[in-house]
């Protein structure tokens, strides 16, 4: 390199950037800001997935445990008092579904988002009012989350005909057996909640249980329905010995 060559180069870069170069630099910085915003958006979406599939479960399970303990303590402290044992406010009992492999699920009144987000199952009050297990006839209709917020019905697709669904109240075990499954139905199909759910193949009034949740997993395009019929009831003994299905 000669001295003249460097002089020429420094001479060329000495004057302030010419208009085209400034324009190019502005475009470059705008593009880089857009790029960074897109990366940020991607990260936020990733965080949202973590939030809905993991964090809401943490919160809901914590809340459900707290409330379940409350119900259990309430049952233990209040003596045997016949049918008045149902406590509507705290939750009416626990659902045990061995095939779903998710322990016990507290059941509370209502299917609003606030109730279901506590990591519990709710029984319908609308559009079709649910019967309660101890009613002579009727359909005990429940809903719970498939994913997030406790995901209590995540494994609903594991339920097959003949699988037991056990509902535990303060003084009775209600043992239901699955007899029909509707793997996909419209979210507007409220007929599945009817006293006699025709789509299950039943035409006479009986003591039924209906589980509803969303399907396919991670979305809520359709609804998944499982129907069971009461097989027998068992009195809860002093040790709360679970029925054979749960042992």
């Amino acid at each position: 390199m000669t001295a003249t060559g460097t002089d020429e180069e420094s001479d060329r870069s000495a004057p302030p950037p010419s208009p085209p170069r400034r324009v190019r630099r502005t475009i470059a910085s705008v593009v880089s800001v857009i790029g960074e915003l897109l990366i940020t958006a991607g990260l936020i979406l990733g965080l949202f997935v973590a939030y809905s599939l993991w964090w809401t479960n943490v919160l809901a399970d914590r809340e459900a445990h707290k409330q379940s303990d409350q119900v259990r303590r309430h049952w233990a402290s209040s003596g045997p008092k016949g049918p008045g044992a149902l406590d509507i406010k705290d939750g009416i009992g626990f659902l045990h579904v061995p095939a779903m492999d998710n322990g016990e699920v507290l059941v509370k009144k209502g299917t609003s988002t606030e109730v279901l987000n506590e990591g519990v199952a709710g029984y319908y009050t609308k559009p079709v009012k649910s019967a309660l297990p101890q009613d002579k006839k009727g359909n005990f209709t429940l809903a719970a989350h498939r994913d997030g917020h406790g995901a209590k019905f995540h494994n609903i697709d594991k339920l097959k005909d003949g699988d037991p669904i056990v509902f535990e109240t303060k003084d009775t075990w209600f043992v239901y057996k699955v007899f029909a499954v509707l793997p996909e139905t419209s979210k507007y199909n409220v007929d599945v909640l009817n006293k006699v759910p025709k789509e299950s193949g039943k035409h006479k009034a009986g003591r039924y249980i209906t589980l509803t949740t969303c399907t396919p997993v991670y979305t809520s395009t359709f609804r998944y329905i499982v129907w069971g019929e009461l097989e027998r009831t068992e009195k809860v003994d002093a040790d709360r010995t679970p029925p054979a299905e749960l042992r």
Partner: protein
Amino acid sequence: MYGWIWRHLPGNTWVKALISMVLVLAVVFVLFQYVFPWAEPLLPFNDVTVDEGMAAL
């Protein structure tokens, strides 16, 4: 954008890194605590009940 923030943070590289960490955690906290709980019901991922919607009207 992030370069601009980095240049405007006070202190040396370590202090800047520390402040950045705190800022990131603060953003994550605000998202988990306020933004996501607000956004979730508006998104169609977690409706589990059958309902009287358009079809039933």
